[in-house]
């Protein structure tokens, strides 16, 4: 029991080139670690996995996960926020914590994707992980912690994420984590298997690489921060947020992110 299945990347030219870039030249002596080339590596990975990222806006799990984030934020604006959450199958007790809220959100997404024709996908799982991380880290930092407080404290914390600026921050965190997980879905196959090569000499180099990737993705996701906040604010006010306009928003946001990574990757 307790099996873990690791996989390999496709044996195509683009992926082989990526592996070569991470492993580094076959020489001894001082060579910069892979973390130094994170901008270029991230751009190259996005290029190789272009079609997979294109599926984001069409993936029902990703779409519903982001839609639910908007609904949780909007519910916090209402005085009967527990009732508002009930409409999405999220049940909170008076002593619920931020972590309890994330448990309920994850449950709601799981139920939705299990009923959808396509079911859960790798992308929907990444979105769930990222939404949970974004909500837990931002709401958790605005309360006594993830595991303390009451439903009212949780509401206050989430309400601060329900403004244009607040949701922009939530969106940036979501997209930053999502794209980092997306990239590392591919890259983690390379880093572990090429440990011992000039650019990944020891375990610390992999940790440094992962941290650099995370930071790079968080920074790059700033490009969608204002956009997120503006879309959320305007759409909620004008027409109401639904799955259709969420899908269109995701398509644009992903394009913005992709352009940003390409730009960062092309800079000398």
């Amino acid at each position: 029991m307790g099996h873990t299945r690791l996989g390999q990347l496709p044996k195509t030219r683009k992926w082989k080139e990526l592996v070569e870039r991470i492993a580094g030249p076959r020489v001894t002596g001082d060579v910069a670690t892979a973390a130094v080339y994170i901008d270029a590596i991230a751009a190259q990975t996005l290029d190789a996995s272009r079609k997979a990222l294109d599926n984001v806006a069409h993936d029902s799990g990703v779409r519903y996960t982001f839609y639910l984030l908007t609904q949780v934020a909007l519910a916090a604006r209402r005085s009967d926020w527990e009732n508002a959450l009930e409409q999405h199958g999220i049940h909170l007790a008076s002593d619920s914590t931020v972590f309890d809220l994330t448990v309920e959100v994850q449950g709601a997404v799981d139920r939705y994707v299990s009923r959808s024709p396509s079911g859960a996908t790798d992308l929907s799982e990444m979105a769930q992980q990222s939404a949970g991380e974004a909500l837990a880290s931002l709401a958790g930092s605005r309360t006594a912690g993830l595991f303390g407080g009451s439903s009212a404290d949780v509401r206050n914390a989430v309400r601060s994420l329900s403004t244009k600026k607040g949701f922009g921050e939530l969106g940036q965190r979501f997209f930053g984590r999502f794209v980092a997980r997306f990239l590392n879905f591919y890259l983690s196959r390379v880093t572990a298997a090429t440990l011992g090569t000039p650019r990944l000499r020891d375990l610390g180099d992999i940790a440094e690489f992962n941290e650099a990737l995370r930071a790079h993705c968080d920074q790059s996701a700033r490009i969608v921060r204002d956009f997120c906040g503006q879309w959320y604010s305007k759409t909620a006010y004008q027409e109401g947020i639904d799955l259709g306009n969420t899908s269109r928003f995701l398509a644009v946001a992903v394009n913005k992110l992709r352009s940003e990574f390409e730009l960062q990757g092309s800079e000398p």
Partner: protein
Amino acid sequence: MCSGATVAASDPVAKGRHFLKLDSIGGKANVNIRFENVAKVFRHDLSARLVDFLEIASYVFSADCATRRGADWTDDDSTEPWGRDFAFVIAVREPDFWCTPKIKDLIEEVLGFLSNDKYSFTFVPLERDRGDQQQYLEFGDLRDWPFHSPERVLMFSGGLDSLAGAVETATRGDRLVLVSHRPVSTLDSRQKKLFNELQKQFPDQLIRIPVWINKAEAFGREPTQRTRSFLYSALGTLVAQSVEAGGVRFYENGIVSLNLPIAEEVLRARASRTTHPLGLHLLSSLCAAVTGHDFIVDNPYLFKTKTEVVESIATHEATHLIAHTCSCSHSMFKTRTQRHCGRCSQCVDRRFATAAAGLLTQDSETDYVSDVFVGARSDPLERAIAVDYTRHGIELDRRSENDLAAIFNAELSRAVRHEPRPSEAVQKIISMHKRHGEVVTRVLAQKVAENSAKVVNGTLDDTSLLALVIGQQYLRQQCHLATESAENEKEKSGAFDPARSLQSAAMVRVEQTLATILAKLEGSTLRSAKKEKKRKPRKREIIIFAAILMDLKGMKYCSFLHKQGIKPKWSDSVPTTYPTGYQAGNPWRKKIQDEKTRAKQRMNRFAESELADLFTAHLPEEFGELTRLLHSRNSHHASKNPTAAKPHKYSTIC
């Protein structure tokens, strides 16, 4: 199509599918189910529904094992093939029960969670039953039997965790009914030997029910086998119902039970969910529906680490049994003298745990084909398992509780979804993971210290766990440089002892390297380094800063950049200037706006004096105006009336 069920080629369920005929009944059976022993032991027939359940589980497991998960991932633009789509048509004895929507939904839900595959089931009446059903005779009253109505029957795999559970239960004086799955004879003989040893310690307290289930060798072999706990639960339910037990019990440490992803590529059921709390909850619901009464499938070791499980064996004075257990994932392991490959994740986990518990002598290294810490790993995936396991463990140790709850939020949420107080349960789970992480870190440091001389001399295999983690190849070069320098210094002073000097300098170097690696895994070194780093803006950025400061928009903004000799950086060759790009409309306008947004965010990181210096160098003519704007920057922003702003249209404004 199972148990002789047929389906017309025109049936929608058959469209576009690869056909597989599975049969466990009759002379041409290709799925071998031998549960006669169960009936023999308990001396009465098994209910038709339970036999159906076991057959359904056996067919699902056989199809799972026979169908590859699409190993050929050749299209560089597609996602990794992982999930499969199964449609079962199964002949059963109680079709009315199995066709109930609630039952079908439950089976599909539990299997979907365990394996990430899609399932649909069509149940039809069975036309020919197995002949051996009526061969058993009723003897006496089962209630007089000493093994009657235990709390649970125990699933006994022959590994450390199930041994610890059995020992713990038997020590309490309880009687135990152990259920084993026998896929191959080698595994069976090991389980039998362990059981015999266990019986010596607890005579008259144990009974073992082995059940043979395997498929014909002609079928393909998919190693992931994610539906095995579905099969085990069916087996356990069959026995539990026979002895009137309250349910089925798995003993599995919490780390493996939750099986948090050790790397980002390990999404969903790529990390097996055999005894995952949510999986066991769903199985409990299904088994209760099948038996028609309350039925629990549980795991009492949910909050224990592997090391704590091993320590429990020691506490109950059963360490001599450790040598008879087998944890290796390679169930088809051929060697008769050794039980562990030393390279799979289970072997790595076992060795770390026995080392941490100080029980390495009971878990002899001769039982491992390759040493977990210093043995060679020729396969890249075997190297990746060792590397990811170690890195994941250290990160669990180094990260805060809140960080872990956020990073693994989806997985942890599922684990505590049915707990009455999720926050409390998850804190216990996180605490357990931190204890596990501490064990990994401690054992690694201990093994590095033990082998530091070999690391320095370069005598460890470069593909071994320790050599990879510590970076032996590169450390060796650094150590030689360090010791040469030390030799030179001491030779000059006349106090040179070559052997001791080399050794001590090397040890220090290895210790320092490990400390640096651990610090990097904590992320602290990188974060502090990042704080210090603030790249000096390039000329193009400074010009854009100036344009933003001057509140230039649209064509004015583009013309200013063009006048200053700044060209767009987009990769396409046309349009070549900002004004022509702006005139051409989207997507160029959007690109210009995005660049401006980024620059605005970056500009905010610089102090007024820093920006003034930059403008002096690059825009001497506009310096006066820019300085004035810089001074009024804060008040300018504050005085802007937000209500006057027009609705933002992301794609056209710049």
